């Protein structure tokens, strides 16, 4: 019987590998997800064959968890996707923490290596839980998205980390009598997750979410070591690795190091301290903007988090359709870190049925920016900030951006003149060819759509 179980785990692990490979390619991605789900089903069903499980509680757990997961996945709005991913990460971390905890209760006198695995599963799991919850609170604006710093923060974090490591050593050396140490480790891990994410600003959330995703894999792999289960180790390790790669892609797109993202409290004190901006703000009404758009033959839409907040993706698509009917070429420039999670803008535009061929990456569109008649910046800020190119004193300096300041005309749709999440002043707004369309992005776009329709009718 054990051989059958082990073999089934091998099949599951193989399918996870194949599924993950397929997930990375656009043409096979959807099937890859199904293959990976099949792997999960095989692993779970196989595990249920193990003797001595408490089936009553398993059924209760599966039903409750399945219902919550299914309802969340079905009802979530695409604009809330970052929050959902954060919560799902947190659940995975919580499960790994609990698995480690139960394993200790089952066999408190296991060897040092098992104890170490339990410790890692619990610490990483705990950090993932509270880190994800804070990320969720920031993303859903239940708390401020600004970096939260307090005096002595680094010292406090260092002390907690040191304490967790010290207790870890005590626990691993003599696990049998160290239950109180383990409980303290859980508390410290939970505290560490909160304190680690508090100083990170909203604009850096894509990095935090991919990193927490990586952690949830590491926690699962550690739980696998604790219970000696190879399929947990394989799947967890692969998730840990792929999460790190995504994290790296995100940090590269911001031209920052991971250390800088995690520890600097980016933008917390920097607001307005960069060199003074010259020029004046020139607002424009939707009426006047319409005439410019009507005459444009090349339009570049640059969406940002503001489009997600205003839920403006559908009206963006509507306007794009009208512009195309009017003979203009419409493209969408997507910055890798626009929005609050990796690929955020792609998901929203896909929801609005924007064709994938119309999406372009910054490095593809920048060389021909002079040929763009109108760049329509919708709720994006840092990713179009020319200071990243021009001002060595700017905290954004060196970050690859979309050079909309070189387009013939740039319309910036913005709620007000408040600086974005990073708190960095944006000289784009003061450039001679920039016009500001103040107000709710959805309403502004709606009136542009109405102008176009009026003429047609």
């Amino acid at each position, binding site marked *: 019987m054990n051989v059958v179980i082990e073999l089934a785990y091998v099949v599951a692990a193989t399918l996870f590998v194949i599924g993950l490979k397929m997930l*990375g390619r656009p043409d096979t991605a959807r099937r890859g997800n199904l293959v990976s789900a099949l792997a999960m089903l095989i692993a779970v069903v196989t595990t249920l064959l193990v003797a001595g499980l408490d089936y009553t509680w398993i059924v209760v757990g599966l039903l409750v968890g399945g219902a919550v*997961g299914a309802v969340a996945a079905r009802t979530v709005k695409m604009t809330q996707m970052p929050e959902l991913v954060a919560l799902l990460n947190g659940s*995975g971390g919580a*499960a790994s923490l609990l*698995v480690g905890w139960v394993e200790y209760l089952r066999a408190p006198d296991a060897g040092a*290596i098992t104890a170490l695995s339990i410790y890692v599963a619990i610490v990483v799991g705990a950090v993932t839980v509270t880190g994800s919850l804070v990320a969720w609170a920031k993303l859903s604006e239940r708390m401020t998205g600004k970096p939260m710093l307090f005096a002595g923060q680094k010292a406090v974090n260092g002390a907690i980390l040191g304490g967790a490591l010290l207790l870890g050593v005590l626990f691993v050396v003599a696990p049998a009598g160290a239950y109180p140490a383990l409980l303290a480790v859980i508390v410290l891990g939970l505290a560490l997750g909160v304190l680690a994410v508090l100083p990170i600003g909203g604009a850096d959330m894509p990095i935090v979410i991919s990193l927490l995703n990586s952690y949830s894999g590491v926690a*699962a792999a550690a739980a696998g070591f604790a219970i000696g289960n190879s399929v947990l180790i394989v799947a967890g390790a692969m998730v840990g690795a792929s999460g790190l790669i995504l994290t790296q892609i995100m940090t590269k797109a911001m031209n920052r190091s991971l250390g800088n993202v995690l520890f600097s409290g980016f933008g917390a004190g920097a607001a307005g301290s960069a060199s003074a901006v010259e020029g004046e703000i020139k607002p424009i009404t939707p009426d006047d903007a319409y005439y410019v758009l009507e005459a444009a033959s090349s339009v570049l839409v640059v969406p940002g988090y503001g489009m997600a907040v205003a839920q403006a993706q559908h009206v963006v698509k509507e306007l794009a359709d009208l512009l195309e009917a009017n003979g203009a070429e419409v493209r969408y420039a997507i910055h890798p870190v626009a929005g609050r999670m990796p690929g955020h803008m792609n998901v929203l535009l896909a*929801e609005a049925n924007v064709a994938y061929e119309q999406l372009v*990456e910054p490095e593809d569109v920048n060389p021909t920016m002079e040929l763009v008649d109108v760049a329509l910046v919708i709720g994006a800020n840092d990713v179009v900030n020319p200071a990243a190119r021009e001002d060595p004193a700017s905290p954004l300096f060196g970050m690859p951006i979309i050079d909309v300041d070189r387009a013939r005309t740039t319309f910036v749709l913005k709620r007000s003149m408040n600086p974005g999440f990073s708190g960095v002043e944006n000289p784009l707004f003061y450039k001679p060819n920039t016009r500001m369309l103040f107000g709710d992005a959805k309403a502004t776009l709606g009136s542009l759509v109405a102008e176009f329709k009026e003429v047609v009718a």
Partner: protein
Amino acid sequence: MTILLLFVFVLAVFLGFELINKVPSQLHTPLMSGTNAISGITLVGALAATAIEGTFGTLLATLAVVFATVNVVGGYLVTDRMFGMFEGGARGGRSDDGAGAREG
């Protein structure tokens, strides 16, 4: 046994790096939620954990099953829903499975 598992771990990490090296940005979100669903594999550990004796242990194990199942079911479903939308967009404006279009 542990050394063997360590081998498995190290190889799987490298495999993960190799598999997800160059991913187009359009796939970043579904890749993240898809791998997130895979990390719900800890469900296997949670199921095994229900073999524990005692009320407190059973409570923790059941909670572990709940959390892991939320992760697995929510992760796979929402990833599939996103892919449904991508396919709808790629065909030029019509979503045929309706999963994405309904949210409009």
